[in-house]
């Protein structure tokens, strides 16, 4: 737990210890980074506003030095830019302060589940390359500008290349809900992705499988 507010740090430590987690607390960014470099933690909770090195900086430095510990950013800043920035720095998830205890644990469970994946992972399909941790897609080395949902769809299809997914299955995966009615949202995203991929010169990455849905060719 990297947090300069001693009361919050103590409270979170109590919550975590009650659930049998062992906790180290660091009160500033530099001490936090040292902890991350010295020891293999299951997860780190990082406050954004810290004396010295701030949370974004800490995440970037830790990732640059090969730290694979899942990072959960805690922020009182609710602005979109801040959350996006946090994830761009290599954090795995964020939680807005003040938070509900159950949500903190739900997020911690989610990021530790994901932790068995290597930090630097590149998915490929033709000239398309996806840096899953860096949340960036490139075509022949050139950055492909993608929205958050577009990225998630392309990553999901590429990660499961060769498998055809129905629209319902994609909807369920990307929006986490099974919608009984019919929705064109999946087609809207596929056509947007195809347009962007085509403009970047990647050719036909996402194929239509008649009567089923879509897939990325291996």
């Amino acid at each position: 737990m990297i947090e300069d507010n001693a009361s919050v740090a103590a409270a979170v430590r109590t919550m975590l210890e009650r659930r049998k987690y062992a906790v180290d607390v660091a009160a500033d960014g530099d001490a936090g980074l040292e902890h991350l470099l010295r020891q293999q933690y299951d997860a780190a909770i990082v406050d954004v506003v810290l004396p010295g090195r701030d949370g974004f900086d800490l995440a970037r430095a830790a990732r640059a030095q090969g730290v694979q510990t899942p990072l959960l950013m805690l922020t009182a800043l609710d602005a979109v830019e801040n959350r996006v920035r946090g994830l761009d720095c290599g954090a795995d998830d964020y939680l807005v302060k003040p938070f509900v205890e159950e949500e903190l644990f739900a997020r911690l469970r989610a990021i530790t589940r994901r932790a068995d994946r290597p930090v630097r992972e590149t998915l490929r399909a033709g000239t398309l390359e996806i840096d899953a941790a860096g949340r960036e897609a490139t075509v022949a080395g050139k950055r492909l500008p993608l929205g958050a949902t577009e990225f998630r769809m392309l990553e999901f299809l590429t990660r499961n290349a060769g498998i055809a997914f129905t629209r319902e299955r994609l909807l369920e995966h990307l929006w986490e809900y099974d919608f009984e009615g019919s929705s064109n949202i999946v087609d809207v995203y596929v056509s947007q992705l195809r347009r962007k991929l085509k403009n970047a010169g990647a050719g036909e990455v996402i194929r239509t499988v008649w009567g089923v849905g879509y897939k990325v060719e291996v």
Partner: protein
Amino acid sequence: MIARLTLRYLLVFAIVLALLSAGAYVFLAREYLALLQPALGTPEATQAYRAAMSRVTLTILAFDIPLLAIVGLASWLLARSSIEPLVEAREREREFAADAAHRLRSPLATIAAVAQAAKPEAPDRFAQNFDTIAQAALDASQAVGELLTLSRPAAAQLLQREPVDVAVLTKVVSKEFEARAEQRGLLITNRAQSAIVDGDERRLRELLRNLFDNALRHARTAITVDSRKNGRSVYLLISNDGDAVAQAYRERIFERAFSGDAQGSGLGLAVVRWIAQAHEGDAFVRDGEDGGAQFVVRLPCIQE
């Protein structure tokens, strides 16, 4: 904004200048005519008159064109000097609001975290108090966030847009409210049909949450969600079978800090309207089809 004001200043000046020039031209034309009166009718006089008048036109233009250029520059300087302080003041206000929100949130975060951590250690008769403390801190923080939203004009540049199926979103959000609805014996029915909006998913979720929250507080037995498509707009209809909203309150409930009842921050519906308007849509309330209240959100949708 500076360009618009410059044009407006320039337009006013151009009109004044045109009037003055036309006046000068007419005046001189008359003077010349009077001067040439005795010789009028002879070809020489007509020619002299024409030559004189074309010189007059050229002279007037020679004055007007550089004058317009100078005034254009002056208008721009004037517009800039009158608008810049306003822009700066607004920017300062925005920063102040963001900073104030952050400063308020930090202690609220401490209160919420400490109360939640302390609760399991507390004797039973106090446990509930810790829940109340934590909930109050969370509510206050939500109100701070809403005030921060409402402190800015509803503008599209504050959104992070991508295509969103609002019908799918109503399902996702209504699922969050299922447990609470069941507790109160309320049935949620959702008949919304797929409609894709170029919108900010997080903001639209917030909009729907506020409407569900409101419906949950006022419904007697049922909440229904429906949608209608009309050309380039989709209308989301969130109805409850509680009391209809009295005519006198239909606008007021969407104003900042008006609350018809004691619960809630009283800002929820103002935020609903803010989000709808930022998407170039709108929000209002009317009588439900079978009585009760129906909240309507209009959003422009993507043509498929």
